[in-house]
């Protein structure tokens, strides 16, 4: 793998780590746009690749939190079971949405995140 590409992937991973570590915001909010803007990923490929990366990041983070006994599995199931159904619906729906609509929706999500960060 080219060194330049490697460095950019490291930067994206680090940015995702900083985001989730410091703000509890999912790393996906930085992974998706950086894959699009730096690597010229299509929107769909960026979101698919981001989900896989987030899965890996969340495994580490959730395992660390579980050690501290902070994970409530039962309540996780209440939210997580419909959430898994939701992601199947969401990814299916996404295949029928124009790619630039995905970019525009994502920009809207980033504005929401920025507002949440600014409001104390």
């Amino acid at each position, binding site marked *: 793998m080219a060194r330049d590409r490697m460095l950019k992937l*490291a930067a994206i991973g680090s940015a995702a780590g900083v985001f989730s570590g410091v703000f509890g915001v999912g790393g*996906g909010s930085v992974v998706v746009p950086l894959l699009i*803007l730096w690597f010229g990923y299509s929107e769909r490929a960026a979101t698919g690749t981001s989900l896989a990366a987030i899965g890996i990041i969340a495994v580490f983070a959730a395992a660390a939190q579980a050690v501290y006994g902070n994970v409530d599995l039962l309540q996780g199931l*209440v939210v997580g079971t419909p959430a898994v*159904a939701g992601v199947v619906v969401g*990814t299916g729906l996404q295949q029928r949405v124009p790619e630039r609509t995905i970019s525009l929706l994502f*920009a809207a999500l980033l504005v929401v995140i920025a507002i949440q960060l600014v409001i104390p």
Partner: protein
Amino acid sequence: MDYVSAALFGFAGGAIGGLLGVGGGVLFVPALTIFLGEPQIEAEATSLAVIVPVALVGAWRQRGFGNLNVGDAIWIGVLSPLGAVAGVVIANAVSQRTLELSFAALVLVIAVQLTHRALARSDAEGT
């Protein structure tokens, strides 16, 4: 306890996650705190555990649609702890407020770039 609302937020979070390639924590955390009465720290931890199956199932679906670059995803995932460590160092050196405002500015710049890029494409390319 309001299990129905929590489940609805869960579904919506998963759907947004699939649509936009994010974890969905933006809705899982409020579902856990508001409807299931979890404290913030526990809610964030539980949300992370929920994100694991959501993200992996979403990635598996996208793989079926031909929208997954496994190699890049693994590198990003494996290298992310570097950033988590850097984040702790930064968080101790700079005030939380400075961090929040600078990251807010950063995501707004990214939002503008994404919007600009999306609108610059012709309708034919955008579909």
